[in-house]
């Protein structure tokens, strides 16, 4: 079947969206942009195509007459089993690379670092089972973060015993993860999917006949070729894409169109990504009429939150919920990422509570965004917030208060997939390129959004 792919090479994450010929969402993929954009692009794209197959499985299951809840449960198990297989494969590759580096550190295979790695990777393997088979949920979408957090805590524990130095162990990880991330994936997706399906099917309550039908459906879907009819790239790294000039679109246009596709009433879009903030005005067709971006300074963008999370020893996903607990937001003046660290420590030293400081930080970011919005022509109804930071509840709360105060607008559109907005817009441009028509007609069919 023909599919249309949009790729958004952001500064922090790379996203991909796959649409079918009717412009309906088939799949989405995301990975961290790392130092190698080509690999990031390839991974996000294959993740989105994989996700598309899951969506096709679902369509197939519905046609097989399986009870919806049983089919849904099977699909979820399939997804998690597959994730676990992928995670274990990456762990094995990481371990192999780490061992090479550890052996170079001296004493060969019996060196203290190698011995420590045995222990660390045993723990990482157990963690994979907990995350993908148990009830625990990963605190990040990315392998590097999930594995990195456990690796670091295990390394610390082992270092306390004194046989090996903590920094040495972390150094091995840092070198190895970069190497792993720069390596394109080589494993066969079909085999992994079938294996995951076997595992997921064990203990299923489905009737044997239904299960057989489903299995046939899964095989059929796995073998179905997904032909990329058009691919459009956007985002900071777009110049890196090996695409023709007309297949590269500015992220401003993509975010405008993507936001319009998700919420057709959109007139103003705020996008806060890893290192830029965009305020975009669109018309009733999703065409951009005005925009403003942050200047030479990326203060107050997504990276800032990442830095703050690191400073506080928190996961990025934990930042928003903690900030929401703040009762008395502390006034933070600096949205400069570097200065913010100093201001943070200063406030902590003065005895302020972490949640109050975080609440203040979130407000400071949004104050900057408000000035950019004003520059672009203000906030008009409907107002849509996109980009990774739109997933942060505290950021949303701060923005909501400011928009109400300044423009009297209460509602903010936020899609759970807001981080994919740019890639969605790019995929819609891909569809338009193929059909040589206005993508906005298809955009009206998109209903992946929900109002916050």
């Amino acid at each position, binding site marked *: 079947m023909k599919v249309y792919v949009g790729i958004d090479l952001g500064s922090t994450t790379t996203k991909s969206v796959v649409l079918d010929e009717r412009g309906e969402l088939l799949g989405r993929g995301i990975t961290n942009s790392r130092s190698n954009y080509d690999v990031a692009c390839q991974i996000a794209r294959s993740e989105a195509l994989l996700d598309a197959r899951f969506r096709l499985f679902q369509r197939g299951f519905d046609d097989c007459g399986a009870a919806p809840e049983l089919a849904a449960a099977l699909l979820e198990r399939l997804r998690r089993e597959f994730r676990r297989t992928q995670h274990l494969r990456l762990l094995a590759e990481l371990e192999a690379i780490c061992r090479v580096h550890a052996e170079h550190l001296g004493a060969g295979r019996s060196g203290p670092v190698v011995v420590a790695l045995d222990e660390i990777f045993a723990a990482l393997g157990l963690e994979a089972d907990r995350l993908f088979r148990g009830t625990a949920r990963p605190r990040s979408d990315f392998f590097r973060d999930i594995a990195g957090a456990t690796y670091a805590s295990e390394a610390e524990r082992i270092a306390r015993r004194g046989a090996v130095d903590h920094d040495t162990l972390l150094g091995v990880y840092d070198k190895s993860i970069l190497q792993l991330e720069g390596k394109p994936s080589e494993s066969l997706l079909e085999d992994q999917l079938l294996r995951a399906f076997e595992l997921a099917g064990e203990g299923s309550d489905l009737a044997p006949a239904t299960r057989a039908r489903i299995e046939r459906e899964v095989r059929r879907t796995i073998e179905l070729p997904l032909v990329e009819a058009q691919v459009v790239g956007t985002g900071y790294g777009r110049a890196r894409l090996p695409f023709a000039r007309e297949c590269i679109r500015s992220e401003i246009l993509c975010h405008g169109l993507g936001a319009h596709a998700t919420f057709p009433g959109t007139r103003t879009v705020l996008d806060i990504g890893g290192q830029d903030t965009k305020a975009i005005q669109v018309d009733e067709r999703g065409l951009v009429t*005005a925009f403003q971006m942050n200047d030479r300074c990326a203060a107050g963008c997504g990276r800032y939150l990442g830095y703050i999370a690191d400073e506080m020893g928190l996961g990025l996903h934990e930042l928003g919920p903690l900030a929401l607990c703040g009762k008395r937001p502390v006034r933070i003046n600096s949205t400069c990422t570097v200065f913010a660290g100093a201001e943070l420590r200063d406030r902590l030293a003065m005895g302020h509570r972490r949640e109050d400081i975080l609440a203040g930080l979130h407000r400071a970011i949004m104050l900057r965004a408000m000035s950019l919005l004003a*520059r672009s022509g203000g906030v008009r109804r409907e107002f849509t917030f996109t980009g990774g930071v739109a997933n942060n509840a505290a950021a949303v709360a701060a923005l909501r208060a400011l928009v109400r105060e300044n423009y009297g607008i209460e509602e903010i559109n936020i899609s759970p997939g807001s981080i994919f907005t740019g890639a969605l817009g790019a995929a819609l441009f891909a569809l338009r390129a193929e059909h040589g028509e206005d993508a906005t007609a298809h955009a009206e069919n998109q209903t992946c959004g929900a109002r916050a």
Partner: protein
Amino acid sequence: MKTHVVKENSMLRQKDMIAEHFRELARAKESGRKVVYTFVPGNLTELLLAFDCLPVHPEINALQSGMRKLSGEYIAEAERHGHSEDVCTYVKCDIGMLLKGNIGPTGEKLPEPDLLLLSYTGCFTFMKWFELLRERYKCPVAMLHVPYQADGTLEPSMIEYVVEQLRRELIPKLEQITGKRYDEGRLAGFLAASARAEEDLVWVLESAKHRPSPIDAYFGGVYYIGPLFTAFRGTQAAIEYYRELREEVAERMRRGLGPVTPEGELEDERFRLVVEGPPNWTHFREFWKMFYDERAVVVASTYTKVGGTYDRGFRHDPNRPLETLAEYCLGCYTNLNLPSRVEMIARYVKEYAADGFLVNSVKSCNSFSAGQLPMLRRIEELTGVPGAFIETDLVDPRYFSAANVKNRLESYFQMLAQRAPAARAEALAP
């Protein structure tokens, strides 16, 4: 980027003119000619020529240093001497150049000033700049107070006020410094020569109304205004330069050719733009390339009016020598109020049939950048054409973020392209 740069004859001629001027400056001591440091907006070149003085324009030296990749070093030198990072980078570049031996853009040492002449006060930094130079050179200063066109009009009383200052303050000072008598007939001769060159410059700038435009009125425009805005107004060399330039442009227009860029002729003009604000000098070619790679041509710019708003009809008038100089000082673009600037840009958008307009705001210039965002909104309202806003700097290489500027320009051009079919449909609607 190609290393071989395509240049027209007029450009080569201008290069020779500049080289000759700096040679004369280097010889000033021997030849006995007096040297006057002065600024481009409101410059009184003809009057200086009437006293055989040689002008030096510090901001032109700064921009030349920017284009020659020397400004970063000069600015660092000025900062080492205590000038803050936020100060106008023209000032710091000039001060840095001075501290490093005052070697001009052509490699020859610049003479010290016999007079610092400030004939335009719209930029307060100019005053402080000359205060710093006075400290250094301990030379006489002539400072005219040129009223700001706050109401957007030029009143006779304002002209009289400036003429009085020319008569009572400046001319006696020039007489004293040079030992020469003021000769109004001689001044009138230079003014008549100015008017001839001005006529040709206006013709060249207005050629951009043609489709395709034979010139780029911003990146090419900064070369075209060079002689008239600096040391050559009123000279025979300027008359010849503009005659040659006009012939070149007329020929391009006749053959239906686009502007000449450093990489050759721009074919198939795609976007027509109006630009407000000076260009960035440290990355001039890289900046220009961002436009011509997209086949975007600047058809009108306000920067080419900072040394005179000739396209509004002003010409130096030999019959009213001092009055015409006063009008000139009062009428330069930087002395206009915000509504006049809005009106001018909106008129350019219409008259030059532009698809869009761009504000290049200068980070280190508060007096000129203030008000540019509201201007942008107002021009959008008046014209229905979308504007874009970018921020760079004059000569501080640290303030030019190529990736960001390119990203914004690309987005803007794509927005214009996306808008084009819709705009056409609107135009066709009954």
